[in-house]
């Protein structure tokens, strides 16, 4: 007979950190049945019979959002033995608003006061004993980030669970209490006594999801009469009455904790926000930061280490050593080729970019942990709104900078179906971690490490999103007003070195693991296909199965400047994992040679691409369909039909952009007017028309008025 402790609290209050601290690696992550909200539960460390259930972060237990419904259904239906309510001490009143609701559930409650360090740094003090008295339940100070007192909080919750004493609801003003008392009398015959208060409040609010069996129509009518008379007396609707009463109560509780309301200091965080979100500096700062992130990781710090890994590790050390070994034991030539040219050539090419990946992810982790990322969403909202989108759509894209799969899953939180579709289609335009080796390879091998190549990959992605947004919003399918944007902004804080290193390490480990599995298998397969022809005889690459397959595909890409079968095949392997583009290049181009010098394959590549075709290749791979894992995620979110549309659009868009890049780039050099250039001009004209044509809505006047502001 185990004990179930539920973790409840606002979003951003440190709940997840606490959950991780309490359960360590014994977590089990899944989905709440029937819905797409994540369900996390785990065993409390050191207690075999205590389970910790992490509930979604919610501001309230109303029946409106999916997270709230999931949380409340669990709390009311499955009744945990105790609730551990994490409260962000630096945001007391809003957090206590939820607490007043948790106290009505008839379950023992323990409050864990988190982020006390932030409060202390702001010079504030919390009277924990006073708060505990006012709440009528135990309050434990914790710092989830530092792991302080987390275990104590859990043990307090266990004690509360064992004592089995339900928490006492807060008292509101007399008039409201009187009304609630009347309703409680009417509903209590039909519900467990501990939950009578909860149901009384829910019925008063006309909560659509709180239904008790056994309430006759006559009783319901009486309840309605009570509600209406209270609303008339207060000249306000029932829900607002309760919301107001809760906040009044929260203010009282905050005062009991020694935090007088109405403190309006401008914090350092606010001062930073003044600048970072200002009309003048906001976007330039954002552009500069993203530029630096990509520039630093790919073109400076990262390059030095990557050069070493490619030239030394995979150039002078490993291949000769392995070759020496294989020759000395008398291994067959073909197998030597598989190991050296196939596996080591391919996987080595990808692993060579590990240093750059790590630096990039370190920088991105810093930006996210310090709180700047949400400010970017705010900036983007301002920009997106002009085109009918909301900044809410940008959050998945921020996540997509790491990996597109969770980014696409994050589109679930967008309620507006059209916006959700559009976001799912465009999220993968932002370069994900797996595309990084492609960017770095082309920047390094074909542009000699030019400073502008890697940041441009990011900005082209953003531009692609914006253009797609504009174009799609003008079609009947996607037209509509932008969704409202409401976002809580946590204060800036300096991330701990430990958390940054953990992020970086996790990322690096995942990358190496992927290299050792997916990429390893793909490179072996590619090696096989390009070493044998259809009769399974060993041949030169140019006569192999792969060349035959690639030869069919390649002409399609000739107008883009890279009609070479090797480039086409590499792009195709990107569907399995984007890193494979690099891995395949490593196998196909390295093979040609004297490959003792890792950089040799970069040299071979350089012969096949011009600057224009190289950049065209880069952009095509960045914008075209994502890897199968991401496509699968899109399918789970949008369904089969829209997935096809999404992938089709992405490939078409990528093709069009790459075509123009190559044709204009080549024209700039050769000044020759070719059919290809003509095609590019037509495509550009069509693109521009799609962007500027009037929207399909009659409210053109409103749009012009809005644009004029």
């Amino acid at each position, binding site marked *: 007979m185990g004990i179930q402790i539920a973790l409840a609290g606002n979003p951003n209050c440190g709940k997840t950190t606490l959950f991780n601290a309490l359960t360590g690696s014994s977590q089990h992550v899944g989905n709440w049945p029937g819905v797409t909200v994540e369900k996390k539960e785990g065993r409390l460390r050191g207690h075999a019979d205590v389970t910790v259930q992490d509930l979604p972060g919610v*501001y309230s237990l109303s029946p409106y959002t999916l997270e709230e419904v999931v949380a409340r259904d669990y709390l009311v239906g499955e009744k945990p033995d105790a609730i551990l309510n994490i409260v962000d001490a630096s945001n007391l009143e809003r957090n206590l608003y939820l607490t007043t609701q948790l106290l009505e559930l008839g379950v023992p409650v323990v409050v864990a006061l988190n982020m006390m360090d932030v409060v202390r740094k702001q010079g504030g003090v919390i009277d924990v004993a006073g708060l505990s008295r006012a709440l009528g339940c135990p309050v434990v100070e914790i710092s989830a980030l530092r792991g302080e007192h987390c275990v104590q909080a859990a043990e307090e919750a266990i004690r509360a669970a064992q004592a089995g004493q339900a928490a006492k609801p807060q008292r509101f003003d007399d008039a409201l209490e009187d009304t609630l008392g009347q309703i409680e009398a009417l509903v209590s015959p039909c519900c467990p006594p501990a939950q009578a208060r909860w149901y009384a409040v829910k019925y008063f609010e006309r909560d659509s999801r709180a239904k008790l069996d056994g309430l006759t129509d006559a009783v319901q009518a009486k309840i309605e009469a009570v509600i209406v008379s209270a609303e008339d007396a207060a000249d306000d609707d029932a829900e*607002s009455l309760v919301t107001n009463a809760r906040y009044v109560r929260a203010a009282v509780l905050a005062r009991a904790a020694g935090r007088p309301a109405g403190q309006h200091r401008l914090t350092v965080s*606010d001062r930073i926000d003044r600048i970072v979100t200002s009309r003048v500096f906001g976007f330039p700062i954002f552009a500069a930061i993203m530029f630096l992130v990509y520039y630093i990781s790919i073109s400076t710090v990262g390059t030095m280490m990557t050069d070493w890994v490619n030239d030394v590790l995979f150039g002078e050390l490993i291949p000769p050593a392995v070759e020496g070994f294989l020759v000395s034991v008398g291994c067959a030539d073909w197998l030597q080729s598989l190991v050296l040219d196939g596996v080591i050539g391919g996987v080595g090419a990808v692993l060579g970019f590990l240093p750059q990946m790590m630096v990039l992810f370190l920088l991105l982790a810093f930006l996210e942990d310090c709180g700047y990322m949400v400010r970017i969403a705010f900036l983007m909202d301002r920009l997106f709104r002009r085109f009918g989108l909301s900044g809410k759509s940008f959050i998945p894209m921020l996540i997509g900078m790491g990996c597109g799969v969770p980014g696409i899953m994050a589109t679930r939180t967008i309620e507006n179906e059209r916006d959700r579709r559009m976001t799912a289609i465009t999220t993968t335009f932002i370069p994900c971690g797996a595309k990084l080796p492609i960017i770095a390879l082309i920047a390094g091998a074909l542009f000699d490490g030019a400073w502008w190549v890697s940041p441009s990959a990011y900005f082209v992605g953003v531009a692609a999103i914006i253009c797609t947004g504009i174009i799609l919003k003008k079609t009947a399918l996607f037209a509509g007003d932008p969704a*409202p944007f409401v976002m809580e902004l946590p204060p800036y804080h300096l991330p701990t070195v430990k958390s940054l290193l953990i992020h970086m390490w996790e990322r690096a480990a995942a990358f190496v693991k992927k290299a050792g599995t997916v990429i390893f298998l793909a490179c072996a397969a590619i090696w096989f296909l390009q070493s044998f022809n259809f009769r399974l005889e060993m041949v030169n690459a140019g006569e192999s199965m792969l060349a035959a397959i690639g030869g069919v595909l390649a002409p399609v890409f000739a107008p883009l400047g890279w009609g070479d079968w090797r480039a086409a095949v590499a792009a195709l392997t990107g569907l399995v994992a984007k890193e494979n583009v690099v891995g395949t290049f490593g196998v196909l181009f390295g093979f040609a040679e004297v490959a003792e010098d890792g950089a040799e394959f970069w040299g071979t590549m350089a012969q096949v691409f011009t600057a224009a075709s190289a950049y065209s290749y880069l952009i095509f791979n960045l914008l075209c369909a994502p890897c199968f894992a991401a496509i699968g995620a899109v399918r789970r979110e949008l369904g089969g039909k829209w997935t096809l549309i999404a992938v089709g659009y992405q490939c078409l868009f990528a093709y069009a952009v790459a075509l123009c890049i190559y044709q204009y780039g080549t024209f700039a050099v050769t000044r020759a007017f070719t059919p290809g250039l003509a095609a590019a001009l037509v495509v550009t004209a069509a693109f521009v028309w799609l962007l500027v044509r009037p929207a399909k809505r009659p409210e053109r006047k409103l749009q012009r008025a809005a644009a004029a502001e």
Partner: protein
Amino acid sequence: MPLSFAQPGQTGVIRRITGRDEARRHLENLGFVAGEQVTVISELNGSLILQLRDGRVALDRALAARILVA
């Protein structure tokens, strides 16, 4: 006055939020209730970053226009 017209540094007391939809309920759950003070931290063409009690909330211009303050 709708909040979207407030300038950085200005403080107002919330009178009411127009409309009866989900967005309004969400705002109320976040603490935008009548009688509460709200201060503008930053403004970007009508979109606002607000100080509400101890927290900071970002809103788009349309939503800010629905919050009437004095």
